[in-house]
């Protein structure tokens, strides 16, 4: 069946089987291998993308379900050479080692800050509880999100 999904603002249209999972649809799109997969049971969160602004597990979503919806992947964070503050935060706070969980974490964090610009540590930890990291022990991921929240708050003040 023909499936058309808006990914990072662009229409991507392909003929796929109904059972094609969103994560595979994304990863087979040129330039979009940043979204990963790591489990069989919807636990690990390496596949998290945004659907209409909400974090979803793309391994547990059919591509066909996403027609008519907006999907954002990690590749959408950097705009015109400018990194998203959440990306800067991960770099500043050493929130990644192997980098495999990083796209899922970044998108989860982006959705959190879009909804809750000033989350507590507990709120950050709860928000990222749908994604697993085997390298960092999470502490620096939490401080990276905090860093990004503070950066965005300061930037907002400056604009006003």
């Amino acid at each position, binding site marked *: 069946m023909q499936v058309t999904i808006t990914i990072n603002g662009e229409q991507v249209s392909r003929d796929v089987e109904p059972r094609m999972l969103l994560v595979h649809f994304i990863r087979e799109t040129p330039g979009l291998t940043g979204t990963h997969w790591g489990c069989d049971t919807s636990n690990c*969160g390496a596949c998290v993308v945004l659907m209409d602004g*909400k974090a979803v597990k793309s391994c547990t979503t059919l591509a066909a379900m996403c027609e008519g919806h907006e999907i954002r992947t990690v590749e959408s964070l950097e705009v015109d050479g400018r990194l998203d503050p959440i990306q800067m935060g991960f770099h500043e706070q050493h929130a990644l080692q192997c980098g495999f969980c990083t796209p899922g974490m970044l998108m989860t964090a982006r959705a959190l800050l879009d909804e809750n610009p000033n989350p507590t540590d507990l709120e950050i930890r709860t928000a990222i509880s749908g*994604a697993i990291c085997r390298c960092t022990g999470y502490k620096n991921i939490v401080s990276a999100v905090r860093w990004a929240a503070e950066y965005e708050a300061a930037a907002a003040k400056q604009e006003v």
Partner: protein
Amino acid sequence: MQTPASFEYERATSVEGAIASLARLGSDARVIAGGHSLLPMMKLRLAEPAHLIDINDLEGELSYIRDDGGEIAIGALTRHVDLLGSDFLAEHFPVFRDAEEVIADPVVRNRGTIGGSLCQADAAEDLSAVCTAVKAKVVIRGTGGSRTVSMEEFHVGPYVTAVGDGELLTEIRLPLFPGAGSAHEKVERRAGDWAIAAASAAVWLDSSTISNAGIGLSAVGLTTIHLTRAEELLKGKPPSEELFAQAAEIASEDCSPMADGRGPVDYKRHLAGVLTKRALSRATARALNQEA
């Protein structure tokens, strides 16, 4: 990653249309909403439906939490995240918020629905116990019209509900009576996991006695355990820790847990008792407005 077997797919544009398709396709068809119970089973090839009917576009008709004349009506397509976030629901039945906080994880909760959870009918599913405790009734619609059933009638067995071929679960209705308090207690191996055991309790207090009580247990039987014997014990009595301890003993006796990777039988029975007692205590404190 594991991948599902092939199936035919259609997107429902109305509840009527979904039901018509279900009726036409019969037992080969399954409804898919959030898909976070069904798709994992399909990826592991534990479920291989030939047809999927996607009802995600029906949020207008099926996603709501509203006051409906003496009852709260919840649309079957209401997402877990919305149940968690509903202050209206939490005010009347905080047990839902308790349970949602420990169901899966926030990302899964963005997609999963109450209808999907109830219809998957895994014995360890939390909302089934919650609905049992709060005396919920569910509305099932077919080509011939709607029917309303109790949670006992709804739970037929493991992964089997009263929703038949050609039918769709459309609504969950919670009766509103004064003096209500409710709570959910769960023990799991890790955050977001299925329960090793969980207990949902609701009490309705009439001045200083329990006029009605509802207790449902997760993960300690082939399906949700409805502790009718404990409910009978509680009715008409003033609440007390001793009374709850007696109810806890009944919980340990009346459940039928199986040993598995989550724990042995004696541990699960023990948990059933302890969690029942805690849920009753918290539910009562809430009914008395003593808990913050």
